[in-house]
């Protein structure tokens, strides 16, 4: 038995070694000649969440990818030959603990991170304002970034909106996507370009049940019922005009809560109705594994990325699925929804501020965003992202949504929203899915009371 196991493992190792082949065409500049920009000297420590340093293969598409080391060698190192970079590659798992520790100990200068973490670190005084650096640097143009997220996001701006602490480099994609084939099977009119919650619910109800053409079970609607940031709930509050709170995150103890208003009741009523339509696993973010693919049985997916469809297209070059899955704007009045923004930020006690700024500026530049889009499908944050593939309608739609985006108090930057509102709403959805939704007004009154108590405890 031992011998057999050892033999099997040896085969596995041999297989693994055989699998290690490599080499790829590694031009990252698109033919552009890279020239020296500055003789500035410095040493900059950069902590990157989720970036890949070495050349490899994109698991989603199967295509070769160029690692950041190679990219920097061909670009940054030529532009700033005297700035030495120390790159720390950090997986997303437990990234907050790692980057918090680095910030507290002064072990890092520049960070790429999640927007919610950046917002919290800024409020904890661990990040530096960038306004003075932006003002001094005439080569930096803040207008190249989407205004909705550069100027109006908790991930890049101080809670009172007066200071800039982050430069956006990647967007989270959240849009409504529908399956044209299922709409045709059911004889339902396609979604309009800015489908509101009422339209979505009405059409989704029509498409839940046995497909009249294929006889398969279809589900009219899908969203993640246990979303950590409650993004669908945010989009609904925007759509129904349920602000939830008034005030500023700079002064959280004086926030005035409006969680049990008639508008919020409408939000919860919508969720109660809609929770009957998705596959049962949606309360645990399961059940949409095939959305965007050939075997899909869901008509409309909220806060969807289009990632599966685009990956399939990139690996097979078959446009069939691209034509089948159509994105429209999110549910807000202007088509807005919650937009996740991942920024580059600078540590408060960065050792070499000027060199760090040059690094930060380079890593958020159009050239780097192009590199990240082409290799790792990161959604850019630029107004004029002309490098986005013409077929990539999902990124284009995400950029449209981001352009009209704005942050409200129902946001992951709001501590009470994350600690209490999101879990409560997810709990409500879970109960509604089994037909046991609590009384909406009583539920919201309770949430309002808890919010007021929370604020009072801060005073």
């Amino acid at each position: 038995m031992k011998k057999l196991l050892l033999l099997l493992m040896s085969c596995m190792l041999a297989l693994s070694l055989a699998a290690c082949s490599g080499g790829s065409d590694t031009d990252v500049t698109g033919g552009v000649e890279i020239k020296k920009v500055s003789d500035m000297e410095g040493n900059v420590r950069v902590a990157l969440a989720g970036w890949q340093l070495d050349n490899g293969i994109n698991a989603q598409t199967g295509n070769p990818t160029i690692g950041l080391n190679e990219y920097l060698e061909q670009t940054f190192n030529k532009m700033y030959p005297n700035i030495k970079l120390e790159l720390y590659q950090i997986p997303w798992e437990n990234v907050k603990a790692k980057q918090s520790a680095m910030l507290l100990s002064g072990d890092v200068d520049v960070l790429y991170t999640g927007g919610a973490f950046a917002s919290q670190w800024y409020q904890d005084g661990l990040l530096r304002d960038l306004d003075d650096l932006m003002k001094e640097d005439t080569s930096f143009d803040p207008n190249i970034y989407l205004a909705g997220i550069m100027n109006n996001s908790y991930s890049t701006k101080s809670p009172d909106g007066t200071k800039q602490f982050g430069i956006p480099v990647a967007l989270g994609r959240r849009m409504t996507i529908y399956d044209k084939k299922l709409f045709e099977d059911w004889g339902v009119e396609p979604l309009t370009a800015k489908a509101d919650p009422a339209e979505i619910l009405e059409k989704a109800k029509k498409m839940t049940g046995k497909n009249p053409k294929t006889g398969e079970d279809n589900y009219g609607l899908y969203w993640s019922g246990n979303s950590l940031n409650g993004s669908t709930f945010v989009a609904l509050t925007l759509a129904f005009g349920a602000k939830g709170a008034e005030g500023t995150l700079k002064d959280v103890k004086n926030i005035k809560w409006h969680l049990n208003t008639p508008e919020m009741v409408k939000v919860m009523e919508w969720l109660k109705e809609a929770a009957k339509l998705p596959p049962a696993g949606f309360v645990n973010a399961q059940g949409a594994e095939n959305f965007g693919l050939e075997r899909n049985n869901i008509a409309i997916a909220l806060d969807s990325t289009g990632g599966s469809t685009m990956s399939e297209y990139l690996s097979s070059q078959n446009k069939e699925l691209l034509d089948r899955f159509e994105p429209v704007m999110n549910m807000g009045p202007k088509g807005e929804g919650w937009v996740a923004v991942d920024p580059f930020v600078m540590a408060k006690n960065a050792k070499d501020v000027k060199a760090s700024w040059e690094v930060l500026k380079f890593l958020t530049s159009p050239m780097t965003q192009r590199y990240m889009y082409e290799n790792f499908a990161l959604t850019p944050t630029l107004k004029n992202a002309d490098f986005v593939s013409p077929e990539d309608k999902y990124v284009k739609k995400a950029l449209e949504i981001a352009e009209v985006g704005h942050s409200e108090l129902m946001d992951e930057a709001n501590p009470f929203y994350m600690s209490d509102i999101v879990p409560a709403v997810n709990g409500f959805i879970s109960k509604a899915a089994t037909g046991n939704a609590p009384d909406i007004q009583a539920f919201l009154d309770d949430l309002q009371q808890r919010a007021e108590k929370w604020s009072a405890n801060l005073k």
Partner: protein
Amino acid sequence: MNTVDANLTHRRKKISLNQWILTIVLSLGSFVMIVPFLWMLVTSFDWAARLHINFPPRLWPEEPSIKTFEVAFTSIKMFRYISNSILVSVGVIIVSALSALLSGYALSKLRFKGANIVLLLALSTMMIPFEMTMIPQYLLFSKMGLVDNYLAFYLPALNYAFGTFLAKAFFDQLPTTLREAAILDGAKEVSVFGRVYLPLCTPIIATMVILLFLGVWNDMLWPLLILKKATKYTIQIGLAMFTYNNGIDKQPSIIMAATTVSLIPVVVVYMFLQRYIIESIALSGIKQ
């Protein structure tokens, strides 16, 4: 029918109903234990499962391919990370086991004043969750200049309170007269420990080796915090790299391919120490 056949028939008849039930229950138990491993193996060869895991599990990959392994090996430095994990594990095992045996021996056989309080204090450190101490611990090591240094694993390993407790309990069972006799013969304390008691400690050493190896091998948080350069990362950090979309979405078949390879050292350890693993569970009450 010869005598041998007759004996066999007789023995078969003696297999009672209870044994059949036991066999069926154990077979079912084994099946439940094996299925996740089989699922891992099948998924690791399934290119189609790189975006979403197949559910219900499949017995055969939808798109059989070794490209999953190719992606795993080109995306992270797999062998480097496994070597690093081995280096960290071996160091921690040596430091922790030695520290626990020495302290357990002292607490059990030397019977100094306040021994119970020392043990209690050591055990009380186990009551504080690591999440509470990790940032201060990181800051301490940062001040000491030990960030990105494997000493940050070996130094905390000196305090292996659970091992001390186990070792003390084990030494308590060994006769104290052995020590007295050795001392009467002129042996020093170090010799008594090393030559008289240590050779009797194989079961407890094996127990500690297994518990420590599995604990260190599977640890993710402390290595992630204390190591900065990717070249020093351990395998668990490497496995965590296979996510996208802010870590929300995973790459199932790639993770499974990397996990399959990363399990090889664990299986090797298991094969050579399997006799002790059962004893260790019985001795410590812990199954990792």
